[in-house]
């Protein structure tokens, strides 16, 4: 018999029972909640007279809808100017109180984007099953946890039963061999992967990311990669546990302590795919071939190397894609053949659960240090992923570097990643963004998003257009 993949192991260790017709009941160790996808679930519980199965397995924080200016944030929930957002955030506070769920409220110094604070607090642990009413829950797979997004009905289901009805996915291995060239980051790796397999390439699979390049990435970088597994169509992304995973977790507030830590570590060390495990699909990339990526269209698979140009729809791989390309170019206001580096930009956004951790902010700060944001850029936002990331950055003086260069330094939250708060693009504006989705209207009605790495976004802020980060000298 062949060995097991990491996904197989995680699945089997959480299998409560197989149900009829090929679905299974899977036990959920940890459930994150936020304000946007939970109110209707709590309401459902109330209507049915149900209570959470295990309240302590839940953790909540408001992130999607919260303002990021210090003036609005200094007054907590009451300070939120948008009345509709305020109600939603208050609802989360009230629901957590009613149902006994721990919440990092908006004015808690540990508050932040749910996918940033879970690992940061050591809430996210290897070997766990984790769900959240948010598709980027795949992020937590970077620590060897089986983590994926669910809808609101499933949020209610998990609250009430601590389980999820699931069908086992197939196994895909995405192997990135060799090493990356200087200036090429985890973000470029995942954009290149999506560019290769397409946004539906991972549908029905759990993707394990492996190979030397993935091993060489920091845990933060692995989170960036797993975060966008969903943009490749996979609900969950995984990276095997190694020494980096374990040292990342040591000493975090919610990580196990003492004898339990020892016991946990020896279990975590088994969380890799067996050498003879068989994957249903294997995709390989050479790290050395990956060039900094920029998305030019309205789907994360529409990416080009920064040295390239906006493609001609005639060159699309299929008839259907040709139509997509045409629609995308129309929306983006771009002509085929335009060099990526001559795309003019209006705003820059550095943040989101993809790229708002300390390593991302350091990379961006290194680029803008000693420089000024280009006069043609209307706004360049830096939004740290959590209160703790913000404090860390400030202790390193990064906020000062950003401010001196003319970028705005904000309070943590999702911000312009989905523009549910006041941080939005105006129609027609182009934005270099470190977020994960470039869908039409994602960052504001009529807004045009280009997905890039933090260093590339920072360089774009300084030059007013995309530049190849490999050509930029650090001052």
């Amino acid at each position, binding site marked *: 018999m062949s060995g097991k993949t990491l996904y197989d192991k995680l699945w089997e*260790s959480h299998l*409560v*029972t197989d149900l*009829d*017709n090929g*679905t299974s*009941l899977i*036990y959920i160790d940890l459930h994150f909640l936020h304000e*946007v*996808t939970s109110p*209707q679930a709590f309401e459902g519980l109330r209507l*049915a007279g*149900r209570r959470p*199965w*295990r309240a302590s397995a839940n953790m909540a924080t408001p992130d*999607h*809808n919260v303002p990021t200016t210090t003036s609005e944030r200094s007054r907590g929930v009451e300070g939120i100017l948008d009345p*509709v*957002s305020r*109600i*939603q955030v208050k*609802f989360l506070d009230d629901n957590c109180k009613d149902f006994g769920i721990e919440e990092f409220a908006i004015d808690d110094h540990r508050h932040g984007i749910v996918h940033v604070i879970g690992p940061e607090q050591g809430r996210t642990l290897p*070997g766990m099953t984790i769900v959240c*009413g*948010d*598709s980027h829950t795949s992020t937590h797979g970077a620590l060897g946890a089986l983590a994926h*997004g*669910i*809808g*609101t*009905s*499933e949020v209610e289901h998990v609250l*009430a*039963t*601590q*389980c999820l009805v699931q*069908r086992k996915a197939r196994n895909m291995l995405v192997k990135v061999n060799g090493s990356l060239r200087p200036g090429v980051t985890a973000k470029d790796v995942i954009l290149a992967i999506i560019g290769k397999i397409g*946004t*539906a390439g991972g*549908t029905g699979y759990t993707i394990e990311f492996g190979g030397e390049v993935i091993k060489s990435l920091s845990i933060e970088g692995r989170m960036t990669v797993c975060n966008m597994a969903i943009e490749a*169509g996979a*609900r969950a992304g995984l990276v095997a546990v190694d020494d980096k995973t374990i040292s990342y977790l040591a000493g975090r507030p919610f990580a196990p302590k003492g004898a339990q*830590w020892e*016991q*946990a570590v020896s*279990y975590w060390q088994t969380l890799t795919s067996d050498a003879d495990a068989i994957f249903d699909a294997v995709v390989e990339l050479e790290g050395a071939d990956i060039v900094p990526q920029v998305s030019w269209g309205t*789907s994360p698979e529409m990416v080009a190397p920064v040295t390239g140009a906006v493609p001609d729809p005639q060159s699309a791989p299929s008839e*259907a894609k040709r*139509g*997509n390309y045409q*629609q995308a170019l129309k929306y983006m206001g771009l002509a085929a053949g335009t060099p990526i580096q001559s795309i003019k930009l209006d705003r820059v956004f550095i943040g989101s659960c993809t790229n708002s951790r300390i390593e991302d902010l350091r990379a961006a700060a290194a680029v803008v240090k000693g420089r000024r944001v280009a006069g043609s850029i209307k706004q360049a936002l830096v939004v740290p992923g959590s209160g703790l990331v913000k404090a860390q950055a400030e202790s390193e003086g990064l906020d000062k570097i950003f401010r001196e260069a003319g970028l705005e330094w904000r309070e943590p939250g999702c911000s312009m990643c*989905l*523009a*549910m708060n006041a941080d939005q693009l105006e*129609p027609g504006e182009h934005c270099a963004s470190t977020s994960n*989705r470039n*869908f039409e*209207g*994602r960052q504001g*009605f009529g807004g045009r998003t280009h997905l890039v790495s933090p260093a590339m976004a920072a360089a774009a802020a300084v030059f007013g257009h995309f530049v190849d980060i490999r050509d930029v000298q650090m001052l």
Partner: protein
Amino acid sequence: MKKFTTEDGLVMPLDRANVDTDYIIPKQFLKSIKRTGFGKNLFDEARYLDKGLPDQDCSGRPLNPDFVGNQPRYRGASILLARENFGCGSSREHAPWALDDYGFRCVIAPSFADIFFNNCVKNGILLIVLDEKTVDSLFREVSALPGYRLQIDLAAQTLVKPDGSVLRFDVEASRKHILLNGLDDIGLTLQHAEAIRDFERAHQSRAPWLFA
């Protein structure tokens, strides 16, 4: 939960691949704490020419004449014909809530995104996967014949076209069962409460740190 048994309805074609959940329901409408009322903002950015706001009365907003759903011939459609990877993007259940509230009971496409697929089942919306060629020919037939309707029978797994010809579709047995009976899946899972407790005990002894 809502049942799906049969549907005899007008078909609206949405000729666009990778329709994402932001396209189905833009984020400004996710601030609602209710499950209903999203229909008027379905496909908001494509459907109207201006930017929609939450809680706005949409009756006076300028309609985009280029949006297929604004053509009078598709008014009252309850079956949506779509392209590959429909429903990709976020996990927002507001997307099926908006489709349902607008009046769509069924979506036909060559493929759907995973999370969206589950969310639809939970809301009694039937998703039918047909191969690309068949979907292509349906697009052609729908645009050629105003008033094009399909009769869908989930129990029989059939689609009947206006000319009386019949297409069969596949559906997973478990999903079919849930949809046909409108089952409360939380109630169903709680029938296994004993097994969940047993699992939990064993899990705790294996991995006590998860229960600290």
